[in-house]
């Protein structure tokens, strides 16, 4: 299907926001990044808000959203609920941090709640796209790919914030490396799933749609095959391997300057990768009966 840029941005920004709050929670578990915790909560909400602005451009009747909204089986409803909970958690996280003596200490419970809601929101957003009608989307690996994006983007972003704040960045290494490793695995797994999805589409052989005579025949295998560069070069190599290597390098060096540099590269690469993955995602978003 056509690229849905508002949704691509929304999903990417949401994953990023989730990653940041989740990353903050991970640092909080180790009592790290105390000067940055409040800021990270804010950053996560800002990213989410940017996502909200992006999605504004997708919805055609934003004003009607409160007019009968709330059909619970709808992924969008679930997303909205998760976002509300996420924001509530982020606010609570911020308040708790602010009220702590050093302005950055969080109880372990709060940290775990932050991690949990981050994973949940990323997963819920991704889950909206799990549709039987779109075989290349209809996998738990698609969900994990968004969670993975959060893992790739979040801890690295946290490390940059910590470095920028002049904080000790030593504790950033593990979450960032682990996160990017998880992200890389998830991204690669979903990329592999997409590449193998060609057989799941209905095939009718030769056909013709009178309304688009100059279009080529819809060909799932070709479409899926054509995504290989976006998936493997864009999403996996640039979007996952580069961040992973950067995080490993930064962790080795451990200093703030390294995190600024490598963390920055990691985040930019992960963003590029996330966008590549979403572009490929829409490109392969053919319906099972793809001929109409």
């Amino acid at each position, binding site marked *: 299907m056509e690229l849905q840029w508002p949704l691509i941005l929304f999903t990417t920004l949401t994953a990023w926001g989730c990653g940041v709050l989740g990353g903050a929670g991970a640092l909080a578990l180790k009592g790290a990044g105390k000067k940055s915790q409040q800021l990270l909560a804010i950053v996560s909400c800002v990213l989410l808000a940017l996502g909200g602005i992006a999605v504004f451009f997708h919805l055609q009747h934003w004003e009607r959203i409160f007019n009968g909204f709330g059909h619970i089986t709808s992924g969008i409803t679930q997303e909205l609920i998760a976002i509300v909970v996420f924001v509530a958690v982020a606010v609570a996280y911020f308040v708790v941090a602010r009220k702590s003596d050093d302005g950055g200490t969080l109880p372990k419970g709060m940290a775990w709640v932050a991690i949990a809601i981050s994973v949940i929101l990323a997963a819920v957003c991704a889950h909206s796209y799990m549709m039987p009608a779109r075989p290349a989307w209809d996998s738990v690996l698609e969900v994990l790919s968004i969670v993975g994006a959060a893992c790739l983007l979040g801890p690295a972003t946290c490390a940059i914030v910590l470095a920028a704040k002049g904080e000790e960045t030593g504790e950033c290494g593990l979450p960032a490396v682990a996160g990017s490793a998880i992200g890389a695995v998830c991204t690669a797994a979903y990329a592999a799933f997409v590449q193998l999805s060609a057989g799941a589409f209905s095939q009718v052989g030769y056909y013709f749609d009178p309304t688009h005579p*100059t*279009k080529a*025949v819809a060909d799932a295998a070709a479409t899926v095959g054509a995504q290989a560069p976006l998936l493997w070069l864009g999403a996996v190599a640039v979007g996952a391997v580069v961040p992973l290597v950067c995080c490993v390098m930064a962790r080795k060096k451990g200093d703030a300057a390294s995190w600024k540099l490598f963390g920055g590269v990691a985040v930019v690469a992960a963003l590029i990768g996330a966008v590549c993955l979403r572009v490929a995602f829409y490109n392969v978003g053919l319906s099972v009966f793809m001929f109409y």
Partner: protein
Amino acid sequence: MGKLTMTRRTFAKMAAATAAAVGVAAPASSALAETKTGTTGAGEVKRIRSTCRGCGKMECGVWVYVQDGKVIRSEGDEAAFQSMGNHCSKGQASLQAAYHPDRLKYPMKRTNPKDSNDPGWQRITWDEAMETIGEKFSELQSKYGNETYFSMAGTSRIWSMGPYAALKQCFVSPNAIQANEICKGPRFYATKLNDYNAYSWMETVGRPRVYVQWGGASELSNYDDSCRTTVDVATRADYHILVDPRQTNLGKEADIWLPLRPGTDAAMGLGWINVVINKGLYDDLYVRKWMNAPMLVVEDEDWEPSVSDSQSTHGSKKNRLLKQSDIKEGGSNTAFMVLNELNGELTYYESNGKSVASSVTDASAADLNLSSSSSSGKLPHWEGEDWKPATAGREAQIHGLDLTGQSQGFVIDATPFIDGLYPALYTPEGGLEVTLKDGKKVHCRTVWEHLCDRVAEYTPEKVAEITGCKAEDIERAATIYATRLDPSTGYGNGGIQYMLPLEHSCNSLQTNRIMDILCGITGNMDTPGGMRGSTAGWPFFDLAMTLPSAASVKGSPDQSKIIGSDKFPMLADPKCNPSWADATSIYKTIETGQPYKLSCGIGQTGDHMNQSNSLYAYEQLKKLDFWVSIDLWETPTVGIADIVLPAAHWMELDCIRKSQGSSGSFGATCKAVEPPAEAEPDLKIVMRIFKAMGQPYCEGSTDDEKWPIDDAENACNNIALAGFRIPEWQDYKKAFQENGPWDSKIEKPEAWGTYRRYETGWATTSDSPAAVQAVMDHPQGWDTSTGKQEIWSTVIDNYYPDDDQAIPTFREAPHGPVADPDLFKDDNSFLATTGRRIPVYFHNEHRQLPWCRELWPVPRIEMNPEDAERIGVEQGDWVWIETKEHKIREVVDLYHGIAPGVVNLEHQWWFPELKQADKGFALCGVNCLLDKDAQDPFIGTSNLRAYGVKVYKATAENSPFGNPVPCGDDGTEIIHDSSDPRLKAWAPDYEGRTKA
């Protein structure tokens, strides 16, 4: 004016018009019996019963819904048995034509030269238009002669068909380029030679038990028959046979498909005849009694063919058939000799009688004196026969009429010969020796033996070789067709629905004669589901012809002066001519000025794209001193006009309608809305032109009587209804609103409700005016020299005595793979066919209707995927299609239903979206590829199919503007997808109809 007088005059004029499809139009007030059907939101919705004219022919019954004075939609009318409630896509899109923002609404004159991209149209008044027309044509005709004028006819998208008859009379010129030259005309003319004009129509609604679709797809065209009827007939039939180079939309369901090489239909037809004769499946009695099969052909080459002075349409013709006058002093030259099988003696069939229908159709008999036609003497007869119309018979046994409720009709039993007579089909070995009146002995063989000789070459194996079909399939198809499924009905399995492709490969006349003979020998002439000709009904003649009821005050057109007759002498035959001047000869005459100058003319929805080479045609038309177009749109041909006159759409006028084909109904098209601004029904426009030229249209002394322009539709409809039990148009319209169309079988039991009318004397007289029918003679048999269905054509024999063409034969298309193998040498060579039916278009029409164009945005070339792979093209690619004349582009459609090596092109595309006078017709117009000189040798029909082309991918490098998509002169792409926003700009304009 008295009704009878008017009718007789009209009749005579009509006959003069030969047998082109035409009619009478007329609306005036719109006192409609409107049916109220409740309300939907806004204003009240009225529904008006009408008859569609979204295509060039079929009379589908429809309902037009009008709300607040606007047409909001139209639907099929199930009360219309002839169309079964069908209303095709283009018919339903009609309201988008009626309300199209690009409709012509005012008379206009051009202000820029003809080579300008913009004609610079300037609005003028009707008065100015008519004054200019009167002056210019009069000036040019006085300078160069009457024949300097020619008309150009389309298929009456608007209403009238002036160029086929009325305008010839108005301008006293026989010259007209007519669309029927390449569509139906050859079939009509073939049957005119063989039996009676237009018996190429099959009674599809008679539901033949074996349905043969030969080169046609009325399920898509919806003209000739509606889609719903066609599919119904095919589904109910025991067998469905498709003869077509490509798998057609309904043909996918055929029981037998003969996928012949384009252009080889004649060979296939001869092959079927071979099978039918060899298996003894022919209708022996019909062949002997109603075909000229037993008549004797003088074999001796030194024998000079003798004349027969037939009263029939054929007139006096020299031919090789043995006549009584050849063997006996004072013998009749219209008594054709046969050998009586019972006694071995010669006997005859006298084909002239005291009066025959055709004698009153003589154009010169404008003042028909009915009483004088009843002279003494006998009607046509066999020697010793005192012929009386047959009466014994029984009700037809057509299946599946329950849904439509149409009547069965009465089938006359086939009558035997009189006692002691049984004409022989075969002569003794070496031929029958006959002594002529001068004592000379000659040898004769029957026409049937000549046919046997001809088809002997066309064994199934040989035909398989020619056509590419399998011999066993050919034999099986012919056998199934000719073997009666239910002999108890006493009639055959049905006719053959043979269509346009048979007219397009330079063998048009003979191929269609073969089909007519095939239907004849299998006993399927005028039987249920057989070949029945044009429906007898009201009006007595076809559809809305513009038929002046007053005689010309400037004389009659001189047929002998018709352009093209030097090459095609039959065009100039005084009575038995096809009615057109061939298009190529007209265009060449414009170029050369020989034999005289053509300087001016009128096109009534005529276009230059349908025959001959379109580019050549356009260049020549530009050279004319004065050209007038009557149309709905600024078409490419309108683009070279000096004056354009705006015509009304079918939803905007009143007109009686009768089945042009054999569907057997008549009803009406009823005005649903006023024409926009100054547009007018073209019947009225033609009447205005008569006035401008000083030719009376109706009889009378005052101008208002001669040219009742404001009452044109009403007046003409009343003429058409003369003799019907509801003679007044307004009453008729009311009855139609209430009851729907009439069943001609019931309303005209003798003329239409009876089958085998050659047994009753009505086969050739059924379409005469009712008042004339009542007093005229009804002779048995057919309207030919021999009075029989002519296997041996006396007319062709007359014109081509040395060419062995009296029995039709097969001829390879001149630029096909056999006749022109050089065109087929490389990987990119293909044999091209074209003309397949596009459901949303009628030929080149409706390109600007959004509901049509969005479903069929561009012309496509069907290609077998194996070929596409070889030449490196894929679905949706633009490709160049090239001949030595020109190259065009179309979009590849991968189609396994066409043979490798053959491509199917779409025809006559032009692009209303382009802002240029020629509307880009040369970008994709298939007839730009044609060799204009490749024509049928007898009647000049263009070679539209079965020629070699080169096909290769269009790329940025080899395309103008670096764009494989065809573009206008300013680089604007044509519309090529349903998403193009320009389509939305063509939505109905409900506001812009009032005069500004």
